[in-house]
Each structure stands twice: as structure tokens, then as C-alpha cells.
């Protein structure tokens, strides 16, 4: 059996693992489907059918323009998937880059990076997004870049102590004594030993990016109007929460479920992919 | 204080760690518990300190001074642990709190278990430093400022400050260099002698044990495989496991020593 199969099976063996795999799997599936098909056209508005309760024709009802809520949420899922993936990717790249600089043999570079990270980490993501929105206007790029930078800084700072531990360990010293260079030790010993922590942190970041999307879109500097996203669905209906609470409930519930699934997934993934905590994985090598 | 363990079995997750272990320690007696790592010897000390992991299943009986402690309440155990039982741990660097000064470490057990004024507590702590052969100026030092041997002496001090009736030493010398080992053994020997307490000394090394105890139980894979006088076990070990431990201890003892008597030679029995 392959590593992937074992990791998946260890996660599936627990109830919360089933939940997170199902929710996240469905998310990806719906995102792909929504690229080519939605139950109703997004632009099929109907002035006589606004704010309708769920019915056979509109499963989740309609919004203020009479468009189908389910179709908009389905279409929004691929926007949100894209935002989460890109933000996490950017965070991982930035985090690793900063981590490498923090572990550099050049003391000035290492200490300097620590100071810079500590200073920048105090900058709120929202402030960063507001500044980016000036030149870029409301766009997906604003969300991805501001989240990517914020989470990248966090990642570097959270992983650093563990990386230092691995860098100062006897096994790293042994590799050095055998002639391994700094890059080799980084790739062979330090990265595999910080991977589990990174997995948790990045999956948390993916969830936080979803929340940030909703927040920034509500503020008008996130996803531009007309582009389907969960934040967009929330922002257009939240003003009428007193009158038509159901339309707010659907996107809210969706975001919450996916964020919880991501958090659970990260924790389980850490245990499942780490040979130290997953005996099944160790048996594979034996 | 007497300790009597009868048919103690412990298993964790279906895996047997201890299998029908019986052990007797009379008041004032010194007994060694010898075994290689993984033999379950530290699980015995954990069992009667009430520190078994939550998933562990224990059966049998552990009587401390006539009181059954297996399954006793947390409160009873805490009282017993602090007031009647003193424990010296293997790794002094890990068992001392790094943010407390030596004086604080020493007075902590007194504060928990006795009603003494601050002055009295400090007095006792300083008196203990004298007994440990440490300078009184050490009182305000932090553990990281002490050498391994000094740390272990403080560890012994915290175990003995409440004048316990039973002292458990769980591999107290393993982490130390040979000179510090000797000092710690001699110190423990003297202090136990003065207090008249019982001693249970857990170790893997007969060459250390023979300097401080007279009786020994040999443990292997959760079972007591041999028990008796240490002199007898050293000269004619009966079980294979004891033979292995004695031979190893003999080979790893310096052969050209001065001053001290070497390990007695093994009697060849045909």
C-alpha cells in the first residue's frame, strides 16, 4: 500500500476525519462542476421572485435580484477554493523563504530577518489589504497577497523554534561532519521535521483565508461585484438579516463548515503523515 | 516504613508490562530493583506512587505501611507521596524546576505537607544544604548554575527534606559521571543511614547497587526472575538474566582498582 493510501485511511478511520474529508472533497467536486454547470444561470434574475423561501425550483431560495442562491454558492466555491489555494501557496513560499533566511549561517541575515518578521507581524492583514486595494482596486489579488504575506510571516515565526531545534541537533551535526552543506541539511533534516507543524498551520491559514475573503469582500476591497463568491453572497444579503435571515444562513453555514473541516483536517493530517505518530506509516517501511 | 507488593500486574493497551510481581521491603531495609531497560522496573515505582498512565490496568496489591494504595484516592496518594515517600529521580536537570532557586525547591515539599513558618522552612532548607555537603551560598542559585552532581544532591535534598520513611531512588546515578556517581551513592548511603528510612534503589547496574543495598530483586520483561542477598547473586546468580547482568557489571568495572574491593569473583558451579 502506498503512503497516500495509508495517510487517507488513518484519517478516514476517525469520525471527524470522515467529516473533514467529505466536506473538503465535496468542496473540490462542486468547484469543478460549477465551472461548467449550475442548476440555474447566475444571471437569470426575476424581479417578481426576490427573497423567496426555498422551493422545488430554488432549493435554497432566491436573493434580492431573484437569482438562485444555490447556483451562486456553487459558483462561489471555485472562487473561494482558488483564493485559499493561492493564499496558502504564497504563505508557504514566503514562510519557507523567511525560515531559510532565519537559519542562514550569515548571522546578520539571520538576526535581521527575525527582527523584520517580528516588526511586520504586528501589521494587521486588513490594513495590508486596504493599502493594496489603493493601486489594485477590489480584486482577488488583494485577498491572496495580503493573506499570503500575513500567514507567511506567521508560519515562519511559528516554525522557527522547531527548525532551530533540528538545526542544532546531533543528527544535523553528524550530517555536517560528513560534509553536508547547509542546504542539504535544510532539505534532508530540517524540512521533514517541521513539516507536521507546517501542515497544521497551513490548513488553519486556508480556513482563515476563507474568513478573510468574506470580511474583505464585505468591506468592498475583496472580490469585485459580479464575481460569485461566498463572501459576495454574504455581503449582499447581510444587510437584510432581520427580514430574510435564511439567505444569510446558507453562505454563513457553508463558510463555517468548511473552516471547521479545514482545521480538523490539518490536525489529523499532521498525525497521519508523520511516521513518528503514525505506526501504520512505519510498518510500510519495515 | 514497610512496603509490600503482592502479585502486581500492569498492562497498557493489552500489552503486559508487569506480570505477577511480588516484592517485600521491611521497615529500615534497603532493597535494590535491578533490570535492563524495558524490564518494567520504573513501572513498579510509578505504580506505587500512583503515577500510572491513565490507560494502564493494574491488579494485585501494594501495601505501604499497612495501607492499600492501589486504587486509593488522589488525595490519600498525594499525602502519602509527600509525607511518607521521598523520590529521587534519574535526571536531576529534568526533575528540578528551572525557574526556582535551590532554596525554593527544598522548601516546596515542606510548604505542601507541613505547617511551618517561613523562617522554620528556610532554616530546615539551609540545614539540609549542610547535610548534602553543599555550600549555603548555593541556596540562591538556579539549577542551571549547578553541575550535574550538585543538581542530583539538591534532588536528594528535596526527596529527604520531609524526613520520609521510604525513599525511592529511581536510577539516581545513571545520568552522572563516575566521580559524581560515587559522591551521590555515598551521600545517599549516609543520609538513609541517619534517617533510618527504608530504601528502594532502582538500577540496571549491580556495581552501583552493591554499594548501597543488601537485598535485590532481579526483574526481566515484567517478571521477578531472582531475588535474594546481593552478595549471593553476585557470586552465584541462578537465572540467566541475573547472570547476564552480573557478567556485564563485572566486565565494565575497572580491573586494576586501588583502595576499593572489586566485585567478588563468580563461583564456578558445575
Amino acid at each position, binding site marked *: 500500500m502506498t503512503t497516500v493510501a495509508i495517510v487517507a485511511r488513518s484519517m478516514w478511520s476517525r469520525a471527524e476525519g470522515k467529516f473533514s474529508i467529505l466536506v473538503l472533497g465535496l468542496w473540490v467536486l462542486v468547484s469543478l462542476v460549477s465551472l461548467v454547470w449550475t442548476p440555474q444561470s447566475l444571471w437569470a434574475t426575476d424581479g417578481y421572485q426576490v427573497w423567496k423561501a426555498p422551493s422545488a425550483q430554488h432549493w435554497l431560495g432566491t436573493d434580492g435580484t431573484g437569482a438562485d442562491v444555490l447556483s451562486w454558492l456553487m459558483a462561489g466555491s471555485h472562487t473561494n477554493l482558488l483564493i485559499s489555494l493561492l493564499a496558502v501557496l504564497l504563505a508557504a513560499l514566503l514562510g519557507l523563504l523567511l525560515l531559510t533566511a532565519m537559519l542562514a549561517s550569515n548571522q546578520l541575515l539571520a538576526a535581521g530577518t527575525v527582527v523584520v518578521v517580528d516588526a511586520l507581524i504586528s501589521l494587521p492583514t486588513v490594513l495590508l489589504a486596504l493599502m493594496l486595494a489603493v493601486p489594485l482596486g477590489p480584486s482577488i489579488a488583494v485577498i491572496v497577497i495580503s493573506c499570503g504575506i500575513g500567514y507567511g510571516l506567521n508560519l515562519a515565526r511559528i516554525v522557527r523554534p522547531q527548525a532551530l531545534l533540528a538545526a*542544532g*541537533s*546531533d*543528527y544535523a*551535526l*553528524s*550530517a*555536517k*561532519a*560528513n*560534509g*553536508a552543506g547547509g542546504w*542539504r541539511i535544510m532539505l*534532508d*533534516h530540517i524540512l*521533514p*521535521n517541521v513539516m507536521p507543524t507546517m501542515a497544521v498551520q497551513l490548513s488553519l491559514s486556508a480556513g482563515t483565508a476563507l474568513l478573510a475573503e468574506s470580511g474583505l469582500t464585505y468591506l468592498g476591497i475583496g472580490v469585485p461585484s459580479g464575481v460569485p463568491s461566498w463572501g459576495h453572497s454574504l455581503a449582499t444579503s447581510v444587510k437584510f438579516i432581520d427580514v430574510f435571515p435564511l439567505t444569510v444562513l446558507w453562505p454563513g453555514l457553508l463558510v463555517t463548515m468548511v473552516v471547521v473541516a479545514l482545521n480538523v483536517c490539518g490536525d489529523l493530517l499532521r498525525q497521519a503523515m*508523520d*511516521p*513518528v505518530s503514525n505506526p501504520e506509516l*512505519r510498518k*510500510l*517501511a*519495515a | 516504613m514497610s512496603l509490600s507488593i503482592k502479585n502486581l500486574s500492569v498492562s497498557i493497551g493489552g500489552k503486559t508490562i508487569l506480570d505477577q510481581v511480588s516484592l517485600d521491603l521491611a521497615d529500615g531495609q534497603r532493597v535494590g530493583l535491578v533490570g*535492563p*531497560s*524495558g524490564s518494567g522496573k520504573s513501572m513498579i515505582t510509578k505504580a506505587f506512587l500512583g503515577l500510572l498512565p491513565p490507560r494502564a490496568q493494574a491488579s494485585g496489591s501494594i501495601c505501604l505501611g499497612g495501607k492499600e494504595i492501589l486504587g486509593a484516592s488522589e488525595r490519600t496518594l498525594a499525602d502519602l507521596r509527600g509525607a511518607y515517600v521521598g523520590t529521587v529521580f534519574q535526571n536531576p536537570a529534568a526533575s528540578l524546576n528551572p525557574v526556582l532557586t535551590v532554596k525554593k525547591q527544598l522548601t516546596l515539599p515542606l510548604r505542601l505537607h507541613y505547617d511551618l513558618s517561613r523562617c522554620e522552612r528556610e532554616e530546615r532548607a539551609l540545614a539540609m544544604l549542610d547535610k548534602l555537603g553543599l555550600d549555603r551560598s548555593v541556596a540562591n542559585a538556579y539549577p542551571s548554575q549547578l*553541575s*550535574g552532581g550538585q543538581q542530583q544532591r539538591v534532588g536528594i535534598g528535596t526527596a529527604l527534606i520531609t524526613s520520609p520513611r521510604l525513599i525511592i531512588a529511581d536510577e539516581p546515578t*545513571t*545520568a552522572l*559521571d*563516575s*566521580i*559524581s*556517581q*560515587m559522591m551521590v551513592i555515598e551521600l545517599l548511603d549516609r543520609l538513609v543511614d541517619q534517617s533510618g528510612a527504608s530504601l528502594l534503589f532502582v538500577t*540496571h*547496574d*549491580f*556495581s552501583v547497587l552493591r554499594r548501597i543495598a543488601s537485598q535485590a530483586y532481579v526483574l526481566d520483561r515484567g517478571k521477578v526472575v531472582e531475588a535474594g542477598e546481593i552478595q549471593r547473586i553476585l557470586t552465584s546468580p541462578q537465572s540467566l538474566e541475573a547472570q*547476564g*547482568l552480573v*557478567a*556485564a*557489571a563485572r*566486565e*565494565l*568495572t*575497572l*580491573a*586494576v*582498582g*586501588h*583502595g*576499593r574491593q*572489586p566485585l567478588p569473583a563468580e563461583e564456578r558451579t558445575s
Partner: protein
Amino acid sequence: MSMSAMRDGCESKAMRATPLLEGSNISKVFRGRLRRLPGGRGECSDSRRPALDGVSVAVRPGECLALIGGSGSGKSTLTRILLGLESPTRGRVAYRGEPVDGTRSEGYRFLRREAGLVFQNPFTSLDPRWTALRTVAEPLRIQARDLTAQMVEQAALEALSQVGLDPGEFAGRYPVDCSGGQAQRIAIARAIVANPKLIVADEPMSSLDVLSRLGILRTFRSIRERSPQTAIILVSHDLGLVQHLADTIMVLQQGRVQEYGPTSTVLAHPSSSYTKELIAAAS
């Protein structure tokens, strides 16, 4: 041939040969009051007292040198300097006649190819996320770039069986599933896999129980029998072990050499009180 006769044979042969590794007049002063050495264990030193003070030492091919001393004696610092992993404040180190002075020096490069290390605690010296096979193969992967993956694996499996571990059983094991003795054997296999000319073992047994200690002692003996030209530097405080392995003993105390000579001479006629104390404690 008895063990002692063989040791004498090695010794006389060793004396004639030129030194493999030589340190002359090495001193080390740490700047700052308290310095934590990389590698986990800290060593206190204050600015006025040097950690090492004019230590000269030579190791010949096939010789086993024991460096003995308590904590703070400077024995760990000395080994790191001899290995080129730290530079001395004063003094010179030469390996195979070439100076060891910075990472670009010839001696440093030779050392990286030809020295194997064994540490005190096997569980911190093995990467917890690597299998035994990968760990043991590491020195070859780094150094011998001309070997195929298959040859590297073959050599690693052979090294495992040399230290008394069944390759079929242990190749895929992770450190968490090993006892202390088994883990230390994996670490020794890593140290010998590239046929080193020098093995440096820093307290290789002090974290193990007596049975494992005996096993490791036998492993070292068999390494010496199989490759009689390999020099060993054994850092230890345990004379009970040293008597079985070392040809030469150097006793260090507070950075100074207290005693330096053949094992039998030092053990039978110790000249410093510190050495006498050590001998008394170990017998």
C-alpha cells in the same frame, strides 16, 4: 591471540606510524560569560579561564585514544576542534599532515570524508523521521556521489549487519521502535558505513543500561578487529569501558592535560589526584 597481546601489537605498530590527527598547543577561550555549545549540551566557561589551555595530542592510525574528564573539563570542546567543527583560539590541528583550518582547507575536506561520529544519546542523534537504512546510508549519499543507489543501499545493509543488527528486520525501522542499544548500533553503523579512518565516539554508552553497554563494547571491538587501521577517539568518563578499548588515555581537567600515556601505565600508576579519584570511582 589474547586481547592484550593484540592490543600491544597494535600499540607498537601505532607508535611507529606517523600521526593521523594531530593537535598542537590548542587553547580555546569562549567570548562571553556563558556559552551554550551547539549540539545540545551546554558547557559553562567564564571569560578568564580558557576552556582549553595548551593541549597537544596525536592519534595514529589504528590507535584508540580515550579522552577522559568530568563536565567542564573541555573534552567535548577538544573533540570538536580536532574534527574541525570549531576553531581554536590558539594552536594548530593537522589531519594526514594537512592543516585543518576553515572549511576550505585540505585537512577539513579529508576529515569530512574520513571521519565518523557517534554521540551520547542515540535518540537525539538519529533523525526521528528517517528509517535506519536512510540514516546509515546518509554519509555515502553525501560523499560518494559516484556510487549507484543500489551500491549505497548494499553498503548500508552491510554496515547494519556489522553492528549486529539484522538488516531485514531493522532497515525499515524508525528510532521510536528501537531500544536505546539498538538505536545506538544504528548510529554506529552510520559512523562506519563509509569505512572511516577515524571514528569519534562521544560518551557512546552512558545513556544505556549495562547489557546494551556490553553489546556496544563488543561492537567496537569487532570494528577494531575488522579494520585495524581505523583510529578511534573515545570521549568517556567511564574507565570500566576505557580499559577494554583504549591504547592511550588522556585525562583532562579544567582544560589542562592531567595525564597522557598508554592505558596500562595510566591505570596502574596514575600521577594526578584527579585520575586516582576516577580510578577509585570506577573500580
